[in-house]
């Protein structure tokens, strides 16, 4: 971490770093805007205003002068807030998200905004209207989504950590695809103020890092109840350190019963064995309601999205179609021209499932399934301390035709969407490389507010099975020496 801190204190280091970033960016395009000076300005302005972070003391010592990246759907004053969309392509945020404010107060520096699937809708980042991001391990593959830019930037060693958002797996899946760590916190523990809403009851800001320890430190900094977000909360009672209640038992699903590619199945089996070797008890569990994860997730997500995205009409900000003669024409054309096809699809479907006469059938039913899934997890956690599951049925897939089509991608959210529906925390970690040297990730899930258990297990795993860095990723501080 000290090497990162040198970056903004040493001209030579900074220069080498920026060349390093440019080199990588030509290959992966993880940032939509890379601009450390604006980030430095944001930190200074925040300090100058003498503003107090909305809640809680920050872990100042370890994050001072550390650079980080921010997914482009999280507001940072002075930076664009495009959400990967043409409709906000020229929009600059006039305010800063609470989670980012806390990091600024801790002295960290946001160096840029990362690429993403438009408005968080997608699992590849190829749904971005503003360009493609490539997986640093193999540029012919996607980086995953929707926080693909953040995961790729961390994997390539461009920043030690990045903020992303996870609505149905959008931090965990790109983290798995890029061989890094990704945390989806308990719903409500990190303020959503400043996170552009897609599906309000499912999503939250989370963290991507190359190491488990930093994941915990960044989370400690950004979490906490925020008066600007009334759905945010502090963990009830004392946050229990993982040591207080040792994690002993991990619940797993029968690998034969989960639908996934063989190579992923292989990694799942291996991961289970390895946790056993580390001394954990492994117990098979079943949660039948999980079969309905995808339809429940998409019904709720699209419904909320149709409402959350209604505000983009070209009146106060964002893209406004030219030459419209009436208000109706202006709004229809701005939205039709400004939104990409995936976004339009979800808005239309979301509007449909909320229609009077259909709500009972779709939206309300989905909420009931959601409750059943939550109850299923609660019941399982009565017998196990953590649950281990794959993140995605495939590893990083190719761009374009050779990959998964939009429908297949949606079905593939079956492993990640459950944690969002239940509001529980989940941590994706690198579990090894497959045949072609491509990362494979797995995820651990815990009961609400039990992130501590996730960090403890992830640290033990990291100790025993340190994940490889991406080829061409420089050791920190040695940016001048890497050959990509």
């Amino acid at each position, binding site marked *: 971490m000290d090497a990162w801190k040198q970056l903004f204190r040493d001209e030579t280091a900074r220069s080498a770093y920026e060349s390093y970033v440019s080199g990588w960016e030509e290959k992966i395009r993880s940032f939509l805007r890379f601009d450390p000076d604006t980030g430095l300005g944001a930190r200074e302005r925040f300090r100058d205003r003498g503003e107090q972070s909305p809640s809680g003391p920050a872990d100042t010592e370890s994050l001072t002068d550390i650079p980080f990246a921010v997914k482009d*759907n*999280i*507001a940072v004053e002075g930076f664009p*807030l495009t*959400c990967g969309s043409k409709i*906000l392509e020229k*929009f600059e*945020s*006039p*305010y800063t*998200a609470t989670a980012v404010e806390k990091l600024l107060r801790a002295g960290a520096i946001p160096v840029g905004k990362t690429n993403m699937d438009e408005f968080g809708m997608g699992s590849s980042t190829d749904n971005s209207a503003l360009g493609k991001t490539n997986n640093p391990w193999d540029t012919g593959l996607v980086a995953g989504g929707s926080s693909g830019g953040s995961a790729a930037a961390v994997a390539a060693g461009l920043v030690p950590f990045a903020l992303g958002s996870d609505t149905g797996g959008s931090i965990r899946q790109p983290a798995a695809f890029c061989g890094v760590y990704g945390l989806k916190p308990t719903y409500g523990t990190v303020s*959503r*103020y*400043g*996170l*552009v*809403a897609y599906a*309000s*009851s499912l999503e939250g800001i989370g963290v991507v890092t190359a190491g488990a320890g930093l994941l915990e430190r960044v989370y400690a900094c950004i979490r906490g109840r925020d*008066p*600007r*977000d*009334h*759905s945010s909360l502090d963990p009830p009672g004392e946050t229990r350190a993982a040591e207080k209640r040792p994690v002993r038992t991990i619940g797993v699903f029968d690998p034969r019963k989960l639908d996934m590619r063989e190579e992923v199945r292989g990694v799942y089996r291996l991961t289970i064995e390895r946790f056993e070797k580390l001394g954990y008890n492994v117990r098979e569990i079943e949660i039948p309601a999980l079969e309905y994860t995808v339809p429940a997730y998409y019904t709720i997500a699209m*419904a*909320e999205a*149709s*409402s959350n995205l*209604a*505000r983009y*009409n070209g*009146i*106060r*900000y964002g893209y406004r179609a030219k030459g419209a003669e009436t*208000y109706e024409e202006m*709004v229809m054309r701005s939205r039709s021209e400004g939104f990409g096809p995936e976004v339009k699809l979800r808005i239309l479907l979301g*509007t449909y499932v*909320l*229609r*009077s006469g259909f*709500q009972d059938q779709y*939206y309300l039913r989905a909420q009931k399934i959601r409750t059943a899934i939550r109850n299923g997890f609660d019941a399982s956690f009565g017998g196990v301390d953590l649950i281990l599951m794959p993140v995605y049925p495939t590893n990083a897939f190719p761009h374009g035709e050779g990959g998964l089509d939009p429908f297949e991608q949606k079905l593939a959210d079956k492993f990640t969407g459950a944690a969002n529906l239940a509001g529980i925390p989940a941590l994706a970690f690198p579990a090894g490389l497959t045949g072609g040297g491509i990362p494979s990730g797995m995820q651990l899930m815990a009961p609400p507010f039990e992130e501590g258990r996730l960090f403890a297990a992830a640290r033990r795993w990291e100790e025993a099975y340190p994940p490889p860095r991406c080829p061409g990723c420089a050791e920190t501080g040695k940016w001048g020496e890497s050959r990509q």
Partner: protein
Amino acid sequence: MTEYQSFIGLEIHIRLLTRTKAFCGCRTAFGDEPNTHVCPVCLGYPGVLPALNEEAVEMGYLVARALHCTLASETFFDRKNYFYPDMPKNYQISQFLAPIGRGGYLELALGDTRKRIGIHDVHLEEDAGKMIHRGGSSYLDYNRAGTSLLEIVTEPDLETGEEAEQFIQEFRSLVRYLGVCDGNMEEGSLKCDANVSINVRGSGLGIKTEVKNLNSSKFVKKALSYEINRQQKVLESGGLIVQETRGWDEGKNATESMRTKESAHDYRYFPEPDLPLFRTDGEFLKRVESRLVELPHLRRERFVTEYSLPEEHAAFLCDEKETADFFEEAVRMGADPGTASAWLGADIRRILKRDGLTLEESPLTPTRLAELSGLLDTDRINSKIAKQVVELIFSEDSGPEEIVRERGWEQIRDTGAVEKLVDTVISEQPKAAEQIEAGDLKPVGFLVGQVMKMSAGQADPQLAKELILQKLNNN
């Protein structure tokens, strides 16, 4: 001749007097430079979230309580989704499934009877911005966007334009009494739409029309009376009522069709995910209860019985809570209710209006009013002097006792002194004196007037009259 029954239901929106908006910290000031009381939240910027204003919730519960509603122990918000230029988010945060209050009533005094008008529900929501059309373009001012509105929906229990007018007046008084709204219909802090239908008596509700543009209680009466009459004519001529929205046109003295009401807009209501359930606890309900005040119509009735005041006086005094409070405080300080009420309703009211003051702002205090009453009731001054005293209270900001003392205005009640004046006047007015002696009492008033003039208004006119009659007309 078929007998028709009419049904009127009102939808009232009041702008709550909260310091800040419903879901953000912007101030609720009006009439300022456009778009100066805005922030990312009320402008619906990407990434913002609503933060519930508890003062607005408390005011909502207060109104619901005053209207005898069943109060929700758990209330939450819903999104009402529709597109309109003045809507920053293109959904309004409102309440649909779990409003603050349901099933209440407001009692109207109709002649000797009382009628209970049912309240369907009371719920909280946010206002939209304001659209201004000018020179072929439309402009948007979001100062008003996000301000707290309370919507009160009545049952269709009102039957005439007069009843509706009275309801609005009573309701306006109520919200002013509670201090939650200034009730100004002209400025839009209290808005009223109506649903009107008629049907053959005993057949239930008819097809309704919505009537809008009711900018004063007077328009409410005129428009609804007109509409009921119009609907009756349509039915009598064998036609059917078209379900539509009509606006009151004051110039034409008629309601005009605004647009055909399409089948109800599908608002796709769903619970607002950004705001948690609001649970009322003992503390909260205690606070609401402590803000309840004696309601206007009950206070009016009490004034009539307790203070033996005529109804019009009681109505005037209770029209504004400040006036009623002032009056009762003065009575507590010793004022005679009849005297205090008469003077408040006449001279004082006139001066306040002339000088553009409220009672609170004026130099008149309950104590001073009590003093004035004391002076009058003990005949130490007469009403003509009292009028001058009142003017001076306002212009000099001093008390009646002081004013009277300084100017030596105490009535001359000493018989001897008055007699002297009477004798002088009689001697100066021989013609009039003769008339009275002859039995024609007409000039008595004139002579009394002369005595008053000679004494600069300070003679006791009653005494002067007695003496004049005594001296000139002893039969």
